[in-house]
């Protein structure tokens, strides 16, 4: 079954075509027209510009890559949320028009579910059920138990800042520009991870939540008044390395602790920060020590893309595909929750151990 995916929840405008067969899915083609270049001069997401750009870019992508009659496409998957309403609408309305015109079903997909499904591209087989997903991006840091297709249970999350945001802000503190995460990672390569001893917030606490605002302020306070030292060779590299080490340690330790407590044998890494090499390596190493398998999404599918949306659409088609009036009625949901995908949420919850019920 061939599924077209459309993604426009924030910075990126993307379309992709994937082929699903049984429990496997593979990308046929995937295009991401990053607005990062446009945004660098602006320093970040500019939603009004983003929406205008989404319209132009998506129209161009559709013209260039899709045939008028949609031959070879069996369904259209699109991100309905979470994200920015004006940007989401561009994708959703385009997807509705295509699906309606081609007389194919539309599958609304949650952007976070998409990130989790990116792991299916990395291996021949998808992750085994149940697995624990560590979802890490600019806007999210969560531990999600996944018991089956579309059965997502959030076990823990950040109580303040997402880890991707923390990378971004540390980058700002040392003048590294946008996008901050990759730049911090690059500088960290030649830095000393022990140069600074910053806190690993909540690492010992008996919960599955995170907190990165304390780490952010710890770095901020350490740097206060020391701006003159930024030019010292190695100073910024050390800051980046030490910060990254703290962030990665917290993520990895809590994930492993959660997986062991839940008795799951597989951890799936998801989200933009899944592109971080140190996180990938550390997670794999620590999970390996604990006898837990790790599934990593390929780099090009860690950041926002449409391939992951199409993959999620393929696996969730049975539950979520719509046609006819229901297709026309599909709306964006900027605050969409992963639980929206769950069927019979209450029934599943009674099966969970106490600490997993939320």
């Amino acid at each position, binding site marked *: 079954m061939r599924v077209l995916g459309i993604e426009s929840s924030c910075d990126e405008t993307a379309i992709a075509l994937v082929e699903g067969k049984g429990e496997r899915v593979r990308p046929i083609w995937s295009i991401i027209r990053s607005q990062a270049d446009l945004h660098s*001069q602006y320093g*970040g*997401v*500019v939603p009004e510009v983003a929406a205008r750009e989404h319209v132009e870019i998506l129209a161009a992508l559709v013209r260039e890559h899709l045939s008028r009659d949609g031959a070879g496409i069996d369904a259209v998957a699109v991100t309905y949320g979470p994200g920015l309403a*004006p940007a989401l609408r561009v994708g959703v309305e385009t997807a509705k028009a295509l699906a309606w015109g081609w007389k194919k079903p539309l599958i609304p997909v949650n952007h976070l579910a998409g990130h989790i499904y990116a792991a299916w591209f990395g291996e021949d087989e998808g992750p085994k059920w149940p697995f624990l997903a560590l979802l890490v991006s600019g806007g999210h840091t969560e531990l999600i138990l996944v018991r089956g297709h579309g059965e997502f249970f959030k076990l823990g999350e950040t109580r303040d*800042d997402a880890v991707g945001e923390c990378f971004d802000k540390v980058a700002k503190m040392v003048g590294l520009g946008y996008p901050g995460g990759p730049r911090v990672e690059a500088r960290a390569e030649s830095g000393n991870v022990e140069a600074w001893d910053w806190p690993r917030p909540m690492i010992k606490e008996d919960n599955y939540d995170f907190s990165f*605002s304390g780490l952010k302020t710890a770095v901020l306070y350490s740097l206060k008044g020391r701006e003159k030292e930024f030019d010292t060779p190695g100073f910024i590299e050390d800051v980046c390395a030490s910060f990254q080490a703290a962030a990665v340690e917290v993520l990895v330790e809590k994930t492993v602790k959660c997986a062991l407590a839940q008795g799951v044998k597989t951890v799936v890494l998801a989200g933009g920060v899944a592109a971080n090499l140190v996180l990938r390596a550390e997670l794999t190493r620590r999970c390996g020590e604990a006898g837990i398998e790790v599934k990593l999404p390929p780099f090009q599918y860690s950041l926002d893309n449409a391939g992951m949306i199409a993959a999620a659409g393929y696996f969730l088609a049975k539950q979520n595909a719509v046609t006819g009036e229901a297709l026309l009625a599909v709306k964006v949901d900027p605050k969409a929750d992963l639980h929206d995908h769950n069927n019979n949420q209450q029934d599943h919850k009674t099966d969970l151990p106490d600490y997993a019920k939320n």
Partner: protein
Amino acid sequence: MTITITNKTIRPIYPTMQKTKLVNLEKLPLFARELVGDLRAGDRVALIGEMGAGKTTLVKAIAKALGYAGMVKSPTFTILNEYKLSTDNDFSGLKKIIHADFYRFENLKDIQALDLESELNNETIFFAEWPEKVNKVDWNPTVVIKIIWISPTVREIGWERLD
């Protein structure tokens, strides 16, 4: 007004603010209740402060003071967060808080695209972090709150109603 702290005399940094207060972070919940007394349903609050000043922390405390029991997280990447309040609060008709962060905006003249008009009404109190990044005219703030870092556990908070 001058305040003496450990032998140093500090003048309030925003003498023009109608109200200012030195707030010890331990006393934040109490302060939030006081601040909430000066807010009204329908207010649009410009929340100003450097990174780490405590803008989101203050919104968290205010939401709690208004009876919100859920999580208040940083809107830096989500841009807009919404917190639905229980109907049982002191503000008649107040249904939700919208918490925005324009940190990732730059040189933006027009925030129309966020569809704020449909969101901002008398059932909502709207907080915007980094309001300096957008045009005041486009969202008409009614209150401004400024937070200044004094020490790791103390902030100077100034606030006033804009006419």
